[in-house]
């Protein structure tokens, strides 16, 4: 049976991984290539590279790095950050990305998802959404979670899937960084309206949070996290062993 996916997310700025990373036996922890290799060897099912560079030079550096990673690591790679046009899709796909994640770019450009899905297929287009409760309603936030767009998150995701998004990454701003577990209520609301894979993001503090996620919401396909993996608080191998013991199917 299909397995639940565990996905580490790497933030890359000017060709280097940002956020403090703390691994035993890994000397250059800010090298995206080395870190990607480490994760791949240790059971990651997929990798997400998020380009937080602002400059054009940094973007070029990012695609160089992506090519380097794709030449040696043969698991699915998703790229996000700064994707505003179909040309941006082209730029990262040529360097070995399998999927491209859009967020603010899709808010600014309403035809981006449709255009990209038509050209590259739905499986290639990931809609990433930062959402937060405002007066009891899930709202879409843009610009890295700083700006309330006023849009209803559930409606936005439904429209995105209709336009051709083949996967949803739902990042709950309410639970992000709190390490108190994933936002099960928000995830459930999304799973009820879409029939494409949903990836949970924001809130993982430990192994138990992933167990709870997949047990409570069997419709969620994957769990994504950054800091708990980067800081070595959770080893993917341990996480997968625990999931399997709890009856959640994973690739070991």
């Amino acid at each position, binding site marked *: *049976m*299909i*397995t639940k*996916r565990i996905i580490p997310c790497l933030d890359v700025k000017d060709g280097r991984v940002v956020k403090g990373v703390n691994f035993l036996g890994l000397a250059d922890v800010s090298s995206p290539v080395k870190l990607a290799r480490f994760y791949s060897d240790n059971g990651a099912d997929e990798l997400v590279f998020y380009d937080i560079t602002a400059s054009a030079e940094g973007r070029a550096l990012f695609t160089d790095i992506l090519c380097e990673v*794709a030449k*040696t690591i*043969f698991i699915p790679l998703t790229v996000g950050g700064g994707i505003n046009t179909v040309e941006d899709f082209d730029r990262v796909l040529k360097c070995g990305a*399998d999927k491209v994640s859009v967020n603010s770019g899709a808010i600014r450009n309403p035809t981006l998802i449709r255009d990209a899905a038509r050209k590259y*297929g739905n499986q290639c287009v990931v809609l990433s959404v930062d959402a937060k409760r405002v007066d009891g309603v899930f709202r879409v936030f843009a610009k890295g979670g700083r700006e309330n767009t006023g849009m209803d998150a559930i409606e936005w995701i439904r429209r995105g899937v209709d336009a051709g998004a083949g996967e949803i990454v739902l990042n709950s701003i309410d639970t992000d960084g709190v390490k108190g577990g994933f936002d099960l209520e928000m995830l459930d609301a999304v799973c009820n309206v879409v029939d494409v894979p949903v990836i949970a993001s924001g809130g993982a503090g430990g192994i138990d949070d992933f167990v709870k996620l997949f047990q409570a919401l069997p419709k969620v*396909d994957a769990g994504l996290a950054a800091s708990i993996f980067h800081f070595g608080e959770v080893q993917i191998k341990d996480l997968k062993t625990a999931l399997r013991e709890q009856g959640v199917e994973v690739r070991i």
Partner: protein
Amino acid sequence: MIAIIDYGVGNLFSLSSSFAFIGQNAVVTGNPDVIRSADRLILPGVGAFEDAAKKLRESGLDRVILDEVAKGKPLLGICLGMQLLFEKSFEYGEYDGLGLIRGAVRPIRDVIPKDLKVPHIGWNSLSFGAEKHALFRYLKEGDYVYFVHSYYATECEESVIASTDYGSPLTAAVANGNVMGTQFHPEKSGEVGLAILRAFCKM
């Protein structure tokens, strides 16, 4: 030399990188002469069947592939490239494939339980049945590979060499003599996938 056939569909970067990684000389090419001089052929493909089949025909590469296969050259179709090996596909209509393997390609939705999602995306395990094909000589029963597809090959029982379970058994790989195909992506299936490509290079 391995020819990765380029007929204008799909991203061939990972495929060519994976052969380079295992020390094999592979070229991405749409040149009939290069394809004829290759020892082995890879037929890749992503996207819709109709468009891919059309491109393959318009480029004339369908004839080249059929000629080379008739001479006994090993061919591996991957994902949509595997589906193109069949007689027919019913993806948004009814379209002819290369007819190298008997059977048809039909929507997954027709055979899986309602609560399962389409496409079938992610890592799923392989089951080889009674006899393990040489393509899987380095694998063990239950090894995981990466799938992304909405259609599956059926009516091809005699050619199935691996299946996977997605609420219903789905064809994961097929073979008919020197013609082989995988529905999953070996170039995205980590060490297991590379081991399949290695085995293909020994055929």
